[in-house]
């Protein structure tokens, strides 16, 4: 599945990968706010944002084509609304909608492609996200792929059993049954996981192998990106 690719990217080594996740998160927010408040007619500003992102992509040594394709996942939604906007006679605004959502998606992708999920979650935790939510996201991410794979196996198995001729009603009932079984298996798996973790001394938070430290260069990066975003926003 394609998410694994991002996971691999995030393990890379580059100056961007080495930065503290909090600095990158803050820089991302500043950048996104700048994009969000840019008026639709400021095409030069959009070009400048794209330039910043492009140089960051190069600095992070990420595969450009693959990154662009992934960021393009936002385009179907954006294109729909852009078309409607264009249709109601506001061409500039339509273009800006598509540009804003693509650039923002690319920026968010840049964060996740240079930051392993564990680091990102630790950053969110230390910035005050409620602990239950952090724990839930952590477990969700860990077991997402396990349980998704189980669902795919079940789908395949039920297709093999039914054949193409099954009626809609019976297929519907089979799908409901599959959801029920998946629920049961997830619940039991959760129980098992939890018991196993308790047996290994789980205290309610995951231990960090390397404590995150906010160094001078993290602060410098945060300030620099924010300053560039503001400068683009003001001057272009």
């Amino acid at each position, binding site marked *: 599945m394609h998410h694994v690719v991002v996971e691999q990217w995030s393990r890379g080594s580059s100056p961007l990968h080495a930065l503290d996740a909090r600095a990158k998160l803050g820089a991302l927010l500043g950048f996104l706010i700048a994009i969000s408040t840019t008026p639709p007619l400021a095409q030069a500003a959009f070009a400048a944002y794209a330039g910043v992102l492009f140089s960051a992509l190069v600095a992070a040594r990420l595969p450009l084509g693959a990154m662009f394709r992934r960021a393009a996942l936002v385009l179907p939604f954006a294109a729909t609304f852009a078309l409607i906007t264009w249709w109601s006679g506001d061409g500039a605004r339509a273009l800006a909608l598509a540009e804003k959502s693509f650039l923002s998606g690319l920026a968010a992708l840049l964060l996740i492609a240079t930051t392993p999920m564990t680091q990102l979650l630790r950053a969110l935790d230390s910035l005050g996200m409620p602990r239950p939510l952090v*724990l839930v*996201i952590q477990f*969700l*991410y860990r077991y997402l792929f396990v349980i*998704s794979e189980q669902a795919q196996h079940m789908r395949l198995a039920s297709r093999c059993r039914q054949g193409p001729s099954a009626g809609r009603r019976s297929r519907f009932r089979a*799908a409901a049954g599959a*959801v*029920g079984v998946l629920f*049961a298996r997830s619940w039991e798996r*959760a129980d098992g996981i939890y018991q196993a973790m308790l047996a290994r001394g789980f205290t309610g938070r995951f231990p960090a192998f390397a404590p995150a430290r906010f160094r001078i260069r993290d602060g410098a990066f945060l300030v620099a990106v924010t300053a560039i975003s503001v400068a683009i926003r003001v001057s272009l």
Partner: protein
Amino acid sequence: MHIPDGFLSPPVWATLDVAAVPAVALMARGARQEIEERRIPLLGVMGAFVFAAQMINFPVGLGTSGHLVGGTLLAITLGPAAASIVMTAIIVLQAFIFQDGGIVTLGANVVNMAVVGVLAGYLPYRLVSGAGARRDGDNPTSTRWRSSAIFLGGVLSVLASACLALAELLISGVPMPRRMLWVSLGLFLVSALIEGVITLAAVGAIERLNPLWVRSPKDSGSRALGVVAIAAVLLVVAGVVGASAAPDGVWSLAAQLGMSAQPPSWLHAPLAGYQVRNFESTWVRKASAGIAGLLMTYAICALAGRAMAARALTTRAGVRQRSA
């Protein structure tokens, strides 16, 4: 409908980000009451279940298939607050990993789907506990009441979050012709009905495997959550009515009504100071409002966390005193 970045105007996303923080904090607190604290990690696995269950296709006729969205299903199995936390986690992950929904619009998506969607979906189920439908085994009337509540929950959940998202887009000034508006409302209704049917079938299947997995309406969720749920539904109705009255955005309505370019004062949310279609207003005000919104979000978050921790300490101390 996950709103990506770039679609909502700064006042809209800033307001919703600020609104989402206390809402999620409240839900996190509620989840601790609904689920034993030590079982909180279980919720993550159930979130993964929802992700995976969305891959299972339900044939819904006309050659198309739908899938479960899951807010209502989670609300009546895990409890509304826990369900809300799980949905929030799903939305955060989708925004970061799958580029499905934006980062600055995270608050909007969380409010639409994880707070309003879950609470609206849970509301009918909560209400049947008061409507004479005690869950006493084989009483057919009460079973029918319960089934219709589950179905209605699925419908309301999807309808509420979709309508809310649409209203936010309209208020942000994304133009939409009136005919298009009706078409999309129709599509929302169809997908809402599909969610109702699928939720009902899935809950039935889960209940057959183990009846204890489905909570009885009475002991799920506090009364405060019920009140919040009703408020959430009312908010959606108001938002949709308001937005559909002015499909070109609230600002143009204001202009039509002869107000000057200045929006009415009640629209000056704490952060507003900029107008969506009025680009002469200085960037400083816009940017500083955005940043102020974030700072406020952070401050509220930190304060709510402190207050919650303090209260948890005192209640625990109280319990200990009583037991001593």
